[in-house]
């Protein structure tokens, strides 16, 4: 059977969605012939074989509004036939082309997140998207809340929930303690420590987090880089918390795992629906950390269960966030209980093998090919 995945980017480009796409492609490569068509940062189209998967990165002329303009995309999508196409949404250029012509008898759409910006997207690409979702044999979302209410996934004929899964094993076992520059960073911060991991972009709610940190007196590690770094550093100075906040960028996966071990509370303060799932929460849970996240109408509060694996607080509310953090920082026993429950939930729901099982079952039922 031949499967075509159409996504935005493919690793080594980093990101939650990229990791999931690679797991879905490489995790089924022993079973099907898998091709992935994604955008390339450069102008040339590149063909590679990665993890048993044929990866085609289509050259990009320009990027605008996080959309890649790739003139070669239509040719790559249309020139061969497949048994099933899996479109990873949102992806307006590819979605539009596949709405015009799908090179397979079956289409599956994996709806990763709603489009929040720009506001007019709903009136334009939204129409194409809804038509596409109605036509798809299945629309997959990663968490039950994603199938409810305002989401475009409600346009689908049939929605399936397949929670994202990650390789838990490296997180479950102890890693070597922090070394090198990480030791320096951590030594400077007193325990207990709050940890943020993610790109420094607008929807992550980092300014809210900094206000909350200023109000609690806790120390904070911000692991990640992004366009807001300078602004955030200035904010840290202005709030007078420079002694309690450390920025770490360019970390390896191993370094991030060490940070999970060295910190006490994980925080995901996101303020926008763009944060659809919060895969980092799963990493934190598998590492045994309690999570404080926000009440977004997405998978975020479903992944981190309130009062079970952590606390869910009102979004965009520094006071609520500070109170949630404070409660955990003051109570090591509660942290341990929530952390243990988080680890259990990660193993039960968010292991990569389980995601693959669910995905394979859907593809095989749609195509009528038994396992």
């Amino acid at each position, binding site marked *: 059977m031949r499967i075509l995945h159409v996504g935005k980017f493919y690793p080594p480009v980093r990101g939650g969605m990229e990791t999931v796409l690679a*797991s879905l492609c*490489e*995790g*089924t*490569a*022993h*079973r099907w012939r898998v091709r992935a068509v994604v955008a390339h940062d450069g102008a040339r189209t590149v063909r590679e074989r*990665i*993890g*048993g*998967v044929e990866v085609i990165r289509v050259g990009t002329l320009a990027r605008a509004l996080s959309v890649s303009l790739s003139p070669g995309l239509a040719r790559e999508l249309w020139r061969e036939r497949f048994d099933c196409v899996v479109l990873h949404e949102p992806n307006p250029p590819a979605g539009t082309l596949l709405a015009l012509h799908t090179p397979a008898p079956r289409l599956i759409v994996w709806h990763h997140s709603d489009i929040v910006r720009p506001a007019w997207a709903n009136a334009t690409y939204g129409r194409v998207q809804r038509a596409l979702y109605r036509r798809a044999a299945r629309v997959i979302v990663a968490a039950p809340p994603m199938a409810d209410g305002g989401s475009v996934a409600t346009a689908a004929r049939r929605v399936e929930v397949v929670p994202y*899964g990650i390789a*838990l*094993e*490296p997180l*479950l*076992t102890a890693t070597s303690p922090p070394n090198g520059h990480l030791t320096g960073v951590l030594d400077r911060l007193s325990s207990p420590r709050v940890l943020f991991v993610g790109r420094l972009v607008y929807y992550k709610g980092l300014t809210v987090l900094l206000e909350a940190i200023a109000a609690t007196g806790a120390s904070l590690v911000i692991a990640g880089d992004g366009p807001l770094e300078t602004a955030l550093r200035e904010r840290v100075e202005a709030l007078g918390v420079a002694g309690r906040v450390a920025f770490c960028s360019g970390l390896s996966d191993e370094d991030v795992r060490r940070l999970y071990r060295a910190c006490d509370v994980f925080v995901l303060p996101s303020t926008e629906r763009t944060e659809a799932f919060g895969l980092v929460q799963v990493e934190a849970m598998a590492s045994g950390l309690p999570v404080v996240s926000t009440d977004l109408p997405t998978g975020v509060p479903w992944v981190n269960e309130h009062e079970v694996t952590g606390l869910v607080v009102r979004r965009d509310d520094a006071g609520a966030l500070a109170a949630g953090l404070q409660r955990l920082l003051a109570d090591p026993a509660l942290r341990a209980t929530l952390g243990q429950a988080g680890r259990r939930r990660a*193993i*039960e729901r*968010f*292991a*990569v*093998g*389980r*995601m*693959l*099982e669910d995905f394979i079952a859907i593809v095989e039922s749609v195509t009528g090919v038994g*396992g």
Partner: protein
Amino acid sequence: MTAPRRILYLSPTAQLGGAEHSVLDLAAGLDRRRHEPRLLCLGDGPLLVEATRRGVPSEAVRIPAAFAGTSLRGTRSPVVSLLGGVLRAAPTFAAVRRAARRAAPALVHSNGNKTHLLSLPLALGGTPVIWHVRDFLRDQRVERLLVRLGNASVKALIANSSALAEHLVRLGARPELVHAIPNGIDLARFEPDGPPADLRAIFGWPKSVRLVGMVGVLARWKGQEVFLRAARGIVTRRHDVRVVVVGGEIYSTRGHGDFTAHLRGLARELGLGGVVGFTGHRDDVPEILRALDVVVHASVEPEPFGRVIAEAMACERPIVWARGGGADEIVAGTGLAALGVPGGDVAGLAAAIERALADPERARGWAGEGRRRVSERFDVRDHVERVQALYARITGGGR
């Protein structure tokens, strides 16, 4: 009643591998009225913790990094690098001598090539020394040199299989010095009915999948690559099979460093991303073995003993094994002989694994014979008894 004689064990590493587990089983199993153990290891590591847990007093000797990086296995220009190693190791020789003098042992029992060399001054100083030989060396010149040194200085050479004993004699070891005493398995720990490790949950695999796995140090000669290549064929034919690679790299010797990353890369390249799980090093080996439907041993060089084969047999697991060296002796006379394949034979290995998977009933029958064989021939209590008898003969005491 005489006072117990002190036995000083020398371990070339403080990591925990098969050889280290063997020497701990021995040291911890000694009859304390006759012999009392002390353990000296090169460098610091988990072996010290485990020794303490098992009631064996232990101590670490600091070693210079240069010597830690010297391996006698597969060295390219052995004699030169050996001499270089000896020179660099001068402080280590002194440290071992000092520690040995403090311990004042009745006998020194060395557990690896590096400590064989380090024990030479002790032997020349009049302490009886036994070399426990657990390895085939790749380079015969080094082996001959070691054997010649051994002939001149030690009281006994223990080989952990008949194959290895014959090999030593062929190399020129004095036959009266060589004793074939196979390793022993703790049958109370390695038993079929205890709890299994929950490997399926960690990787998110359904309970219904069949697990095929390798357990042991990650090293080229152990054949994990062969296993992954064989697995490639199996998982395309059988969708109910998942593959587990259990173990970490233990030797700090140069060139051993990036093998884990290499294996993960190979698994990915083979398109096995969704069906292979790497657990890293695990201490709960009996639990792991019990979780596996088929255990695989795939060494591409003759195995001096082949501990995991005996452990899997003790747990009544079907084991597909690579022929040669000590492995043949362990499996001999059981139905498991049918699951033996030549080392390095990818297609043969895949076929044998599929035979074991296809007829679980028969495979279980063979596995039952496996435990009987281990209890008759490889019980750790017998092993300890045979070694103690040797100690008694050498130190000249009665029993």
